[in-house]
């Protein structure tokens, strides 16, 4: 590892922003976030970046390192510097700039408000009994740390700025976790997916899956199954005919697991 590296940071609050180089002394195991912290402590305390846990669990320190959406706390400097010891760090491009490496991600929180919460029938027997294999697929989605790197890389949001039409991969994952919850009875999820959440906008380029620091299979396990469910409900002519005759379909709930003799588990 090089003893000294250069961090080229984006600085500024608007379109007049510029790049500035900082020399940083390295130490074993140093991550890009450490380098930014060293700049704040020793060179320029006005450099703005978000961070919290520094252990890849909170998703605060998202940035574009050498043009790639990454968590700064999980990116070792030796994996990113070039032959001249240079690393470039920019803010997420998809969201409005606040300052330096910090962007305004509030749009994501506004979209989250529009998603109806988990709805469990008062009649469902308590305590809930669910099998591990039935919850495992939604546990994958619930690993999401809301770093919004998938939102940043999604070309529907990034290149086409269709924030008016598509909730983005993060919220597809959230809706998938609710839609596939064994006890959820919210009737309007697929209608929301089709209309305001805009699941049809995704054309499965899998860029979101590639950048997910939690390794969630966003496209394969969340978005494609959601697309299939929407297609089943709205675009299958046979089902459409059945619905026309039998009335709208109620969301089905799996039969409760019979109570075993003993509660003792593994």
């Amino acid at each position, binding site marked *: 590892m090089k003893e000294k590296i250069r961090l080229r940071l984006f600085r500024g*609050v608007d379109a007049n922003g510029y790049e500035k180089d900082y020399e940083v002394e390295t*130490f*074993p*195991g*140093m*991550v890009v976030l450490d380098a930014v912290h060293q700049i*704040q*402590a020793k060179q*320029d*305390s*006005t*450099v*703005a*970046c*978000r*961070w*919290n*846990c*520094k*252990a*890849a*669990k*909170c*998703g*605060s320190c998202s940035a574009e390192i050498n043009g790639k959406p990454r968590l700064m706390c*999980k990116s070792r400097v030796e994996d990113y510097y070039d032959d001249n010891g240079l690393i470039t760090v920019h803010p997420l491009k998809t969201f409005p700039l*606040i*300052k*330096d490496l*910090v962007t*305004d*991600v*509030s749009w994501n*929180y506004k979209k*989250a*408000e529009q998603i*109806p*919460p*988990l709805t*469990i029938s008062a009649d469902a027997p*308590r*305590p*809930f*009994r*669910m*099998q*591990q294999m039935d*919850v495992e697929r939604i*546990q994958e989605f*619930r*690993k999401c740390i*809301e770093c919004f790197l998938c939102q940043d890389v999604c070309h529907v949001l990034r290149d086409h700025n269709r924030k008016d039409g598509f909730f983005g991969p993060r919220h597809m994952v959230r809706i998938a976790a*609710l839609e596939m*919850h064994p006890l959820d009875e919210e009737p309007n999820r697929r209608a929301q997916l089709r209309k305001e959440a805009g699941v049809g906008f995704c054309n499965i380029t899998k860029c979101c899956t590639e950048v997910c620091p939690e390794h969630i299979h966003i496209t394969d396990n969340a978005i494609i199954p959601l697309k299939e469910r929407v297609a089943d409900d709205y675009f299958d002519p046979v089902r459409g005919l059945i619905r026309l005759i039998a009335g709208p379909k109620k969301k089905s709930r799996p039969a409760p*697991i019979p109570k*075993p003799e003993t*509660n*003792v*588990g*593994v």
Partner: protein
Amino acid sequence: MESYQAYEHDVLIIGAGGAGLRAAISVMEAGLSCGVVSKSLLGKAHTVMAEGGAAAALGNMEGEADNWQVHFKDTMLGGQFLNNPRTVEIFAKEAIERVLELEEYGAVFDRTPAGLIAQRPFGGHTYRRLNHVGDRTGLELIRTLQDKAVSLRPTFYMETTVTRLLKDGERIVGAFGYNRQNGEFILFKAKAVIVATGGWGRMYKFTSNSWESTGDGASMAFEAGAELMDMEMVQFHPTGMLWPPGVRGILVTEGVRGEGGILRNSKGERFMFNPDYMPPHYKGNFAESEGEAHAWLFDKEKNRRPPELLPRDVVSRAIYKEVLAARQSEHGGVYLDVSHRGADYIKSKLPSMYEQFHALGDIDITKQPMEVYPTIHYTMGGIRTEPETAESSLPGLYAAGESAAGLHGANRLGGNSLTDIMVFGKRAGDAAAAYARTASHGTMDESQIADEQSVLLDPFTNSGGENPYTISQELQEAMQKGAFIAKTEEGLKECLAIIMSLQERAKQMRVPGDRCYNPGWQTARDLRFTLKVSEVIVRSALERKESRGAQWRLDYPEKSEEWGKKNLITVKSGGEVKITTRPVPQMPAELKALVDS
């Protein structure tokens, strides 16, 4: 005076971790107006770092053997009887409802073969009691509470720092602070205020805490005249990451030991079997041979737990002593090895530990041991609260979660914090809502606001030229040296002298730039909180002349019966830190019977 934005709520909640969010749910369900201030973005609070699980005696594993009574006893034993027994009773009973409620809100816990919530063993808990989701339970908990709270639509103030509580006479009637993104000042008027600002680990060099954990809540409450309690009790988690330096202090979940992780020194000895490390009151409850400890992995009813699962204070001291005796690992800690559980098991039960060591430490924990050393993790002390209502000693001010004191005594058991924040978050929310229903808004004189504005703005014009990062670093060095696991009067006094001189130097802090998202400016204000809380910690540690739980005094190595009857109380008196004592509340006969059983 500079201009400010003003907002009014029935209840203002400072902090949006688990305790703050659970309180917000209660206030919204009571039909009142609720503001929630979050120092960072929503969902990033320190709750997210909790890994192992939420302790509640659901009895899904051992059946009726586990119940709130055993949980009560374990928590009292773990806290070395400095806990408020009524607080612990409420906690042990209500933890069960809160976990089940979390499932109603959408949490998806790991399951037993019978389809119920799976529970894992943890330090100091007699039975398998930690309701968990792999090793990311904190994330599950905060996201669930976040989604639930958002669906009830309180007003969130993200990236907003509250720096002063505002008073009308003795009553707390609001708070003042600023928005980090644009530097605008904000005045909050509220009929009741709940402090849920978490703990304070940032005054130590090696800590699992994020930048936010600077003791804002405790410090503001102290400045406003509220009583703090048990401030000497700072928890050192036995297993922090040690190498490389960039990751030092990051938490390695106790779940590793819960899943069978073994601690060894450089000689390969499983040192937790050393009888010198076994506290008398735990003797007989733990495996006495490696064979029994191994058999426990497969049959938890017929075998006793391995001694790696002793409470955190005990394991931390043992690691400290091993290193002191020159039996340390390559980089000065000990080894923690879980590789015998096999790659598949580890990746399913400890996925984020696997990922953390793989990405940050170049270690494959399915094949190699980890190197660990104690790290600052949690603060048992905080704002003294009433068990039933979470009300502080000041009217209109409530506290819940890590910022409050009383539940954990001298040492917190792993897993008790995640249920603490739900039980007392709810109680604080309910009580603050009930209070706000009948109270009216207070009046506050503007001088408090003007005074806080001048404190906040001072670093932009001060001619002193002190760098807040330099002071912060010197404080961390001093606390790490003088107020770490093993303390002495001499070391504490030296540390206190440094803190006092740093407090003076902090009056000369200067920061460049403007108010828009300026980390230097933020650090300058946070540092004042940290310096004050550090002073209180060290003065309290000096005062308690005994060793108990997290308080380990080399010059007073034994537990003292006298000190065991007292909690230390800190109040502001004549502008100074004043420390007094208060008798630990007596246990009623029926609770005492539980402990003696």
